[in-house]
C-alpha cells in the first residue's frame, strides 16, 4: 500500500519536474484523441441530424405505395424500382382511412446556375420531381414564393438556389437531360434544412414531371398516402394492401423514412466516418511511436535517479510502477484535454460546414458515452502501451548504475533484431507475392503490407546507421565540422534516431501510398482510353457518383448527322437481373459501338444483336458460364422476363461495360431516358479541332455538355482523384505534425543530455548560428531518414495495392510513380524536419556557456 503511494508520489514529483519533457507526449495524445473524439461526435451528430431531418420531412406521409419489382446492382445504393400507375391514386383515395394520396414522380434533373454552369452533379443526386400540392405529403416545404401552377414553373430547394445564384423570378435551364426552360417561382426547405445534404431538388407541375421525367404519362415512382384521423400507419397499410394490384405494396411512412435514412447513413455517413476513423487510427499509431520514444529517452536519462532509488531500497516494482503511473497521468490528462478538443472540433465543423455550402443539420452536438469513453480509453492505452517497455527497463535498473556516468543507449541493431527484421521482411514479401502474383486478392496483400511495416520498424535502427551516413555524406563538405557534428549526432543512438524517424516514416508512407495509387488510377484511365477508345471525341456526363442527369438520347443521332462525323454512338444505362443477379447494362447501338471502341478480340458478332440478343464481356461470361450461342434470362424492373441469346463475347469491358443490349430490346423497359457517354469518330481528313467545334455547336442545343478530346476525356477523372488526394493530404497533415513534434521533442531531450558538450563547443569557438545549424541539420537528417523510409515503403505498398486491385478485378491496372508529387513529398518531409529543429536549435543556442560547462 505505502509502496504504491510512494510510486505515485515519485511520479507526481517527476511529472512536475519534467513538464517540458512531457509536453510533446501530451500534445501527441491530445491531437490523436481530439481527432478520434471529434470524428465520433461529428458522426453521431450528423446521424442524429439526418434522422431528425428525415423524420420532419416524412412526418406527414403515413404510407407509401410502390412496385415490388426492383433490380439492385451490387455497389449501387437503392436499386431501380418499377413505376406505379397514377390511376391507383383514385383507388387509394376511396379506401377507408385514407385522407389524401398523391403521386410522387422522381427523376434526374440538373439545374443550370446563373453563371451558366450546372449546379452540383459531382456526387450527390440531382433530383427533379412533381411538386406535391398537399403540403403534408410533400417532404419539401415552401419557404418563399409559391407552388408551380403552370408548365415551366418550378420550386427549387433554397440550398441549390444559393449555390447557383438563382432567385424567385429567374429563368434557367433544367436538363432532364433534354434542356427545359424553367422559371423559379418558389424556394423550399427539406425537413427544416435548406436541402437534403448537397442533393439538388427541382419540383415541377405534375404534367411537366410526367412529360420530362417518365417514359410515358400516367406513371409515378410511388404514391404518398396520408391517413385520416384515428387511423394508425399500420392500420392504413393493412387497409391498402387488399385493394392494391399484384406487384404493388404499401409500407408505412416510418419504414420508408427509415429506408431513406439508412441509405444516407449507410452510403454516405458510414463511408465518411470510416474514412475519418482510419485516419485517426493512423494518427494514433504515429503518436504511439512518438510517445514510446519520449518515454524511452526519459527513462534512459533517469537511469541514475532510478538507480539511486533502487540503492535506497525502492523495489523493482515501485520503480516500474512509478513510470507507469506517470504514463497513466499523462494519458488521462492529455486524453481529457483531447476530448474537449474533439468536441471543439465537432462544434467548429458544425459552424463551418454551412459556410462552405454543406448544410450540417442543426441541433445540439450528440455526445454519446462511447464517443467519450472510447477516445479516453484509447488515449490512456496508447500512453500506457508506449511506456510499458521503457518502464520495464526502468524497473531493471541495477542499483550500481547510480555510480556510472549516464549512458545513452548507443547500441545499434542487435543480431536478434536483424534476424527478426529480415524474417518479417521475408514473410511480408511471401504474403505479397501470393497476394499479387499467385492468387491475386486483397487479404494476403494487406497482411503482407502490415508485415512490411513491422519489418521496417524492426529494421529501423540498423538502417538508420547506413541511411544517415549516406544521406548526411554531403553535409561534411557543405557545412564542414558543423555538418559532421550534426551527422554524427544523428548517428549517435541509432535506436533513438530510428524510433524518432519511424513516426514520420509511417505518415510519409501513407501519403506516398495514396499518391502512388492516385497516379496509378490516372494512368489506368489514360491507358484505358488509349487502348479501348478508338474515337476522336467523347461527350460525357459526370462520371462521379449519382449526380447529373446524363445526356439527351437525341444528341447522339444529331451529332451523327454532322458532315464531319462518321460514327456517333450513345451509351445509355439500363439494369436487369441476369439469371437472377442484378447487373448494369449498356444500352447502345452495338454495331456502332464496335466501330468506335476497341473491344479487343470478339467471338461472334456485335453487328446483329437484335431485340433478343446480348453481348457479354469475356470475364463476366467466364464467371457466369455464358458463351456465344447460350441463353440468359433477363428480368427487367417492370417485372417482365425475356430470354436473350448471347451473340458476342468481347474482351475489353472497361468502357463498354459487362453487358451490351440494343436500344430496341431495352425500349419497352426503359425509365427516364439518357446516355452517360457519347463516343464520336470523325471522317477521314477532319481535324480534331474542326470536328470538336462542330460537335460543340450541336451539343449547345442540348445543355452544352462537355465535349472532350481523347486526352481530355482520359484526364477528366483526374479532377476527382486530385480532390480525394487533397482530402487525404489534409487528414494526414496531422499525423505528420505529430511526427514532427516527436522529432522536436527528441531533439530537446538530446540537447538536455548534451548540455556540457554544447557548452564546450561554444567555449572553443562555435558561434550561436553554427550551433543552431548543427541542431537543425540533425533534425533534417532524422526527418530525411524517415521520409526516405516512408517513400520507399509507401511506393512499394502502392505497387502492391495496384497489383492486388488488378488481380481482384478483371480490368488491367497501370502502375505509375508520379515523380513530381513524390519529390514534393520528399521536400515537404525534409523541410518539415528543418522546422521541427527550429525551436530546439534556438533553445540550445541560448544556453549560457559557463553554466552549460558546469552542468551535471
Amino acid at each position, binding site marked *: 500500500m505505502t509502496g504504491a503511494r510512494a510510486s505515485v508520489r515519485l511520479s507526481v514529483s517527476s511529472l512536475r519536474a519534467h513538464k517540458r519533457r512531457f509536453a510533446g507526449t501530451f500534445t501527441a495524445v491530445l491531437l490523436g484523441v481530439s481527432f478520434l473524439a471529434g470524428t465520433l461526435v461529428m458522426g453521431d451528430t450528423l446521424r442524429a441530424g439526418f434522422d431528425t431531418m428525415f423524420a420532419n420531412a416524412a412526418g406527414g406521409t403515413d404510407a407509401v405505395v410502390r412496385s415490388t419489382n426492383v433490380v439492385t446492382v451490387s455497389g449501387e445504393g437503392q436499386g431501380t424500382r418499377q413505376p406505379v400507375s397514377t390511376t391507383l391514386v383514385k383507388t387509394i383515395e376511396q379506401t377507408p382511412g385514407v385522407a389524401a394520396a398523391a403521386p410522387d414522380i422522381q427523376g434526374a434533373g440538373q439545374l443550370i446556375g446563373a453563371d451558366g454552369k450546372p449546379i452540383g452533379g459531382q456526387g450527390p443526386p440531382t433530383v427533379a420531381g412533381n411538386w406535391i400540392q398537399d403540403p403534408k405529403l410533400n417532404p419539401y416545404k415552401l419557404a418563399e414564393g409559391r407552388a408551380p401552377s403552370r408548365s415551366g414553373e418550378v420550386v427549387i430547394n433554397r440550398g441549390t438556389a444559393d449555390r447557383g445564384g438563382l432567385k424567385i423570378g429567374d429563368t434557367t435551364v433544367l436538363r432532364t437531360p433534354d434542356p427545359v426552360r424553367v422559371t423559379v417561382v418558389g424556394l423550399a426547405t427539406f425537413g427544416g434544412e435548406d436541402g437534403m445534404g448537397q442533393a439538388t431538388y427541382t419540383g415541377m407541375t405534375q404534367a411537366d414531371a410526367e412529360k420530362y421525367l417518365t417514359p410515358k404519362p400516367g406513371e409515378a415512382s410511388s404514391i404518398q398516402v396520408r391517413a385520416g384521423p384515428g387511423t394508425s400507419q399500420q392500420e392504413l397499410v393493412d387497409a391498402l394492401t387488399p385493394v392494391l394490384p399484384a406487384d404493388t405494396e404499401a409500407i408505412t411512412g416510418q419504414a420508408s423514412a427509415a429506408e431513406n435514412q439508412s441509405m444516407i447513413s449507410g452510403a454516405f455517413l458510414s463511408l465518411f466516418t470510416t474514412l475519418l476513423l482510419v485516419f485517426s487510427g493512423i494518427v494514433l499509431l504515429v503518436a504511439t511511436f512518438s510517445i514510446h520514444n519520449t518515454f524511452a529517452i526519459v527513462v534512459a536519462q533517469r537511469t541514475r535517479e532510478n538507480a539511486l532509488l533502487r540503492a535506497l531500497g525502492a523495489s523493482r516494482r515501485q520503480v516500474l510502477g512509478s513510470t507507469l503511473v506517470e504514463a497513466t497521468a499523462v494519458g488521462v490528462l492529455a486524453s481529457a484535454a483531447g476530448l474537449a478538443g474533439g468536441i471543439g472540433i465537432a462544434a467548429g465543423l458544425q459552424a463551418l460546414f454551412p459556410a462552405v455550402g454543406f448544410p450540417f443539420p442543426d441541433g445540439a452536438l450528440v455526445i454519446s458515452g462511447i464517443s467519450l469513453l472510447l477516445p479516453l480509453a484509447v488515449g490512456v492505452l496508447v500512453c500506457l502501451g508506449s511506456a510499458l517497455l521503457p518502464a520495464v527497463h526502468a524497473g531493471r535498473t541495477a542499483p550500481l548504475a547510480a555510480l556510472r556516468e549516464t549512458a545513452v543507449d548507443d547500441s545499434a541493431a542487435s543480431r536478434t533484431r536483424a534476424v527478426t527484421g529480415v524474417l518479417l521482411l521475408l514473410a511480408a514479401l511471401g504474403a505479397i507475392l501470393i497476394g499479387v502474383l499467385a492468387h491475386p486478392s486483397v487479404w494476403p496483400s494487406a497482411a503482407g503490407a502490415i508485415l512490411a511495416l513491422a519489418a521496417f520498424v524492426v529494421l529501423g535502427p540498423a538502417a538508420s546507421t547506413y541511411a544517415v551516413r549516406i544521406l548526411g555524406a554531403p553535409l561534411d563538405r557543405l557545412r*564542414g*565540422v*558543423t555538418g*559532421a*557534428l550534426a551527422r*554524427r*549526432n544523428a*548517428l*549517435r543512438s541509432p535506436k533513438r534516431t530510428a524510433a524518432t524517424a519511424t513516426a514520420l516514416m509511417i505518415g510519409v508512407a501513407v501519403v506516398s501510398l495514396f499518391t502512388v495509387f492516385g497516379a496509378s488510377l490516372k494512368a489506368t484511365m489514360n491507358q484505358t482510353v488509349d487502348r479501348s477508345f478508338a474515337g476522336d471525341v467523347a461527350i460525357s456526363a459526370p462520371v462521379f457518383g449519382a449526380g447529373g442527369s446524363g445526356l439527351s438520347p437525341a444528341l447522339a443521332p444529331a451529332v451523327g448527322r454532322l458532315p464531319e462525323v462518321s460514327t456517333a454512338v450513345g451509351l445509355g444505362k439500363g439494369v436487369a437481373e441476369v439469371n437472377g443477379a442484378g447487373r448494369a447494362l449498356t444500352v447502345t447501338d452495338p454495331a456502332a459501338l464496335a466501330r468506335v471502341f476497341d473491344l479487343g478480340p470478339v467471338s461472334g458478332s456485335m453487328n446483329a444483336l437484335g431485340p433478343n440478343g446480348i453481348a457479354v464481356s469475356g470475364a463476366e461470361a467466364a464467371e457466369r458460364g455464358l458463351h456465344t450461342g447460350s441463353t440468359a434470362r433477363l428480368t427487367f424492373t417492370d417485372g417482365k422476363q425475356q430470354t436473350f441469346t448471347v451473340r458476342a463475347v468481347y474482351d475489353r469491358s472497361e468502357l463498354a461495360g459487362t453487358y451490351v443490349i440494343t436500344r430496341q430490346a431495352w425500349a419497352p423497359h426503359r425509365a427516364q431516358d439518357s446516355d452517360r457517354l457519347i463516343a464520336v469518330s470523325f471522317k477521314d481528313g477532319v481535324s480534331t479541332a474542326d470536328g470538336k467545334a462542330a460537335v460543340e455547336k450541336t451539343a449547345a442545343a442540348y445543355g452544352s455538355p462537355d465535349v472532350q478530346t481523347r486526352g481530355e476525356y482520359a484526364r477528366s477523372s483526374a479532377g476527382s482523384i486530385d480532390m480525394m488526394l487533397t482530402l487525404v493530404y489534409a487528414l494526414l497533415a496531422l499525423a505528420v505534425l505529430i511526427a514532427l513534434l516527436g522529432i522536436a521533442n527528441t531533439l530537446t531531450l538530446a540537447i538536455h543530455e548534451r548540455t*556540457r*558538450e554544447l557548452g*564546450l*563547443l*561554444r*567555449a*572553443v*569557438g*562555435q*558561434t*550561436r*548560428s*553554427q550551433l543552431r545549424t548543427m541542431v537543425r541539420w540533425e533534425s533534417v537528417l532524422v526527418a530525411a531518414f524517415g521520409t526516405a523510409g516512408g517513400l520507399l515503403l509507401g511506393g512499394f505498398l502502392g505497387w502492391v495495392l495496384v497489383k492486388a486491385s488488378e488481380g481482384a478485378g478483371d480490368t488491367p491496372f497501370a502502375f505509375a510513380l508520379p515523380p513530381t508529387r513524390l519529390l514534393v513529398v520528399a521536400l515537404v518531409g525534409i523541410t518539415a524536419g528543418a522546422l521541427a529543429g527550429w525551436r530546439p536549435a534556438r533553445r540550445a543556442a541560448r544556453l549560457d*556557456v*559557463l553554466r552549460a*560547462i558546469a552542468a551535471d
Partner: protein
Amino acid sequence: MTTTIRTGVVAAARVVDAVKVYGTGDTEVRALDGVSVDFPAGRFTAIMGPSGSGKSTLMHCAAGLDTLTSGSALIGDTNLSALDDRRLTLLRRQRIGFVFQAFNLIPTLTVAENITLPIDLAGERGDREWIDALIDTVGLRDRLHHRPSELSGGQQQRVAVARAFAGNPDVVFADEPTGNLDSRAGQEVLRLLGRTVRRTSRTVVMVTHDPVAAAHADEVVFLADGRLVDRMPDPTAERVLDRLKAFDPSPGATAVTP
C-alpha cells in the same frame, strides 16, 4: 592589493579593476573586488587561492566566458566588454585555448578532429606543421582515429591540451586541468603545459588549488576574497603551501588534492 606591472614584458591577457558581483542586496557576493592583474606573454601563470577566493571567476572573465560587472578584461589590446556574443565567440576560437577540468572532448569526434575543432569551426586549414608537432609532443599519434571514450582520463586531457594550442592562440586558459586525474597522469599533463610554454613561448593561465600543480608555473598569483593578495615568481610546492597556510587557519582543507 599591490600589482607589479613589469615593464618591457607584453601582457597576453589582463584585467583592470575587475569587479564581479553576483546577486543583489542581502545575497550580494563580490566574487572579484577590484582585481588588476596582467598575464605576461610567453609565461605560465597559475592562479591560486582558497575556495571562494574568486580564482575561477577571474579566469572565466579574463577568457571571455563571463562578463565583468565593472572594470575591463583584455586579450592583447582587445577589450572584451566591447564585444558582442558573436565576436567574443570568434575571439575565443582564434585567440584563446581552453583546457577544462573534465569533459573536454566532443564524444562523436575522433582525437584528430577534436584537436582541430576550433580551426575547423573557423573553416580554416590551420598550421599543419605546428599541429603535427603538437601531436608528437602530446604523444598521441597512434590514437588519432580513436574516439575519446577509448582513451584514459590522462590521454583525454592531453588531447585537450593539444586542442588548446592547435590554433596558435594568444593565451591558453586551463581550469583545474588535473583535477580529475591521478597524480601520475596529472604530472604528465602539467609537464606538457610547462614544456609547451618554454619551448615555444606560449602563454598559459591555469587555475588550480593544488600547490604541486602550481609549482609547474613560472609565477603564481594569489587571490583571497576577490582581491589579488600576492605574486610569487618561480614557485615551489612547499613555498606555495606555506603561502596558502597564511590565508587560512586550516590550510589543509583547501590545499590537499582530493
